[in-house]
């Protein structure tokens, strides 16, 4: 029936990722200290402005899973005592640090220099603290932890932001002391400005997905995640989103969808099933289903940045991120996305090894489903561990979701 019609421009994100890792290795070869970042993606502009190469460990684990290089690291981690239920990003990443020379040939994309220091946050997920501690012990390097308070109420936002800004100042002292470099505040403002431009371009592209058929799927946005994970604040991120926007505009003018024969418009809650990225996108498209929106996929750097106040811009984006909000906020947010993007059904990916994002998913699913009168299903899988994935189960659930949508349409007709 349907088939995928991926955005060509989204592949710029993959290229940016490959370039990013090459630059990282080059930086290490030049003798620059290397920073590993766990969870605290939003702080990367402060490290970039110092001229220090960094690795966002979560993205690297996802990258390896998407390229099917995660199995051996997961096995090695398990052999070293990590339980199978531990976050698969942690297991993949720590497993890589423990690979033997022989195993390294099975993980071609793990060519990451060892860390000289680590930055972590405890916002949204407690796993980062334990994972960070493991990295600290393994490499005997200094670590800085950012505490991000959970945003229970919007009225607490200013207080939470100022609290995080105070810690960012402390982090800057840590960075300067550790690297023996002085922060380049002008460069930081330029990075924030570039980030703002990327945000504007991304938002314009997202708006275009309201069209029927939608010119992009979340799988296109996922392919372009290099713009967020590795290139944020660099000209490449603006270029990626600008190119995507342009290609989407052309598609909208031609009424061309990212799924040929778009029949169903879906929303996706939760992270991507990285090892099944390609097959899942094809599976959905073959049934005419286009996943047009996702709180997760569009959730990074959610608040427009202000180049005149870089630290506050970073703090806002740590405090405001969707996973740092209470359930009511998340329900409203997902429901709004579903309404705005004219969604027929909701897929919730319940990640086996990420308790942080799954705890309230059933409530969220029920609330959104009831409020908008749209069917919703769970897919039980994982971000990185494909042993938790059952194709037959996922097939049945996805097909059942589409059958429920059909039944609802018949009822209305």
């Amino acid at each position, binding site marked *: 029936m349907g088939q995928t019609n991926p955005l060509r421009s989204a592949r710029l994100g993959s290229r940016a990722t490959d370039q990013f890792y090459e630059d990282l290795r080059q930086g290490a070869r030049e003798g620059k200290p290397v920073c590993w970042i766990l969870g605290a993606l939003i702080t990367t502009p402060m490290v970039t402005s110092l001229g220090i190469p960094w690795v966002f460990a979560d993205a690297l684990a996802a990258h390896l899973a998407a390229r099917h290089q995660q199995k051996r690291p997961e096995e090695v981690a398990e052999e070293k005592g990590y339980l199978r239920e531990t976050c698969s990003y942690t297991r993949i990443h720590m497993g890589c640090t423990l690979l033997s020379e022989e195993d390294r040939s099975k993980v071609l994309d793990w060519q990451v220099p060892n860390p000289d220091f680590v930055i972590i946050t405890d916002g949204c997920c407690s796993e980062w603290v334990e994972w960070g501690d493991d990295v600290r012990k393994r490499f005997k390097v200094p670590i800085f932890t950012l505490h991000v308070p959970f945003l229970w109420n919007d009225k607490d936002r200013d207080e939470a932001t100022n609290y995080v800004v105070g810690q960012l100042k402390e982090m800057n002292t840590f960075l300067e002391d550790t690297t023996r470099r002085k922060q380049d505040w002008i460069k930081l403002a330029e990075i924030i400005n570039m980030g703002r431009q990327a945000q504007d371009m991304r938002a314009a592209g997202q708006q275009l997905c309201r069209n029927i058929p939608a010119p992009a799927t979340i799988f296109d946005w996922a392919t372009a995640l290099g713009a967020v994970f590795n290139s944020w604040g660099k000209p490449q991120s603006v270029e990626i989103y600008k190119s995507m926007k342009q290609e989407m505009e052309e598609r909208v003018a031609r009424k061309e969808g990212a799924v040929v024969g778009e029949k169903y418009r879906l929303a996706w809650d939760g992270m991507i099933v990285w090892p099944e990225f390609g097959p899942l996108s094809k599976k959905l498209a073959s049934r005419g289903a286009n996943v047009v929106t996702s709180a997760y996929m569009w959730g990074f750097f959610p608040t427009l940045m202000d180049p005149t106040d870089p630290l506050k811009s970073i703090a806002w984006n740590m405090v405001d991120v969707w996973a740092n909000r209470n359930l009511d906020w998340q329900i409203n947010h997902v429901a709004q996305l579903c309404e705005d993007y004219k969604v027929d059904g909701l897929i919730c990916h319940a990640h086996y090894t990420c308790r942080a994002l799954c705890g309230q998913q059933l409530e969220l699913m029920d609330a959104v489903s009831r409020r908008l009168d749209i069917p919703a299903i769970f897919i039980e899988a994982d971000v990185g561990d494909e042993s938790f994935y*059952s194709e037959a*189960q996922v097939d*049945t659930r996805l097909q*059942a979701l589409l059958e*429920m949508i059909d039944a609802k349409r018949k009822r209305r007709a």
Partner: protein
Amino acid sequence: MKAVAGVDIGSLTAKTVLLDLQGQLLSYSIVAAGMVNRKAARKCLTQAIRKARLRTSDIGSIVSTGYGRSLVKFGDRNITEISCHARGAHWLMPHVRMVIDIGGQDSKVISVDSEGRVANFAMNDKCAAGTGRFLEVMSQALAVDLAAMGTLSLTSTNPAQVSSLCTVFAESEIISLAARGCPTVDIVAGLHEAIGRRVVSMVKGVGIHPPVMMSGGVAKNQGVVKVLSQLLKTDILVPPEPQIVGALGAAIFALEE
């Protein structure tokens, strides 16, 4: 064309239901498939056709369902067992609003609307804990006839505490119980309670909507039905042949084609 067919290829058995063009049941067939396979699907259909004294050419539309639904190449369309169990249950008992289906390798709770359409559903994860296969393994471990487990457990007055539904853990748990002298009837009753607790958590996820029907092979186990009835505080309706509800639903969809 004199009839339509619904073919349900489950993980352990294949089922076929034939309906005439007025929607009346002509025949059904259940074949132990061992594993999901095409041969069993064909064999099951042939048996049902023979029972109905029809020829293959008399069969119009065929809808397949179950885990092996896409293997049925002679089918015109495939539909999930979730939609088919809902439709089949509605055909048998139109007032039913919830179906609990425990088959060979999975269990489902389906909320059904007044037209027999799926309103919501929940499934177990990919582990076969608490399903027909689980009971098969336990019956072997306890050296008890699978078909007798249900009635056997009804005689228990003190069900054992079985905490795990993982087939491997539960097997070692019941071996320990047996070694401690726990009567077999109590162990079987404990297993049924463990299955019941798991299903109840799925029911609560969907929200209970009586009247409740149970379908699938495990519905033939009176012990599980009783436990579910007690835990859900409602009667559980069981059709005369609960294994064919999915195939029946598929046949009804075929009739609508």
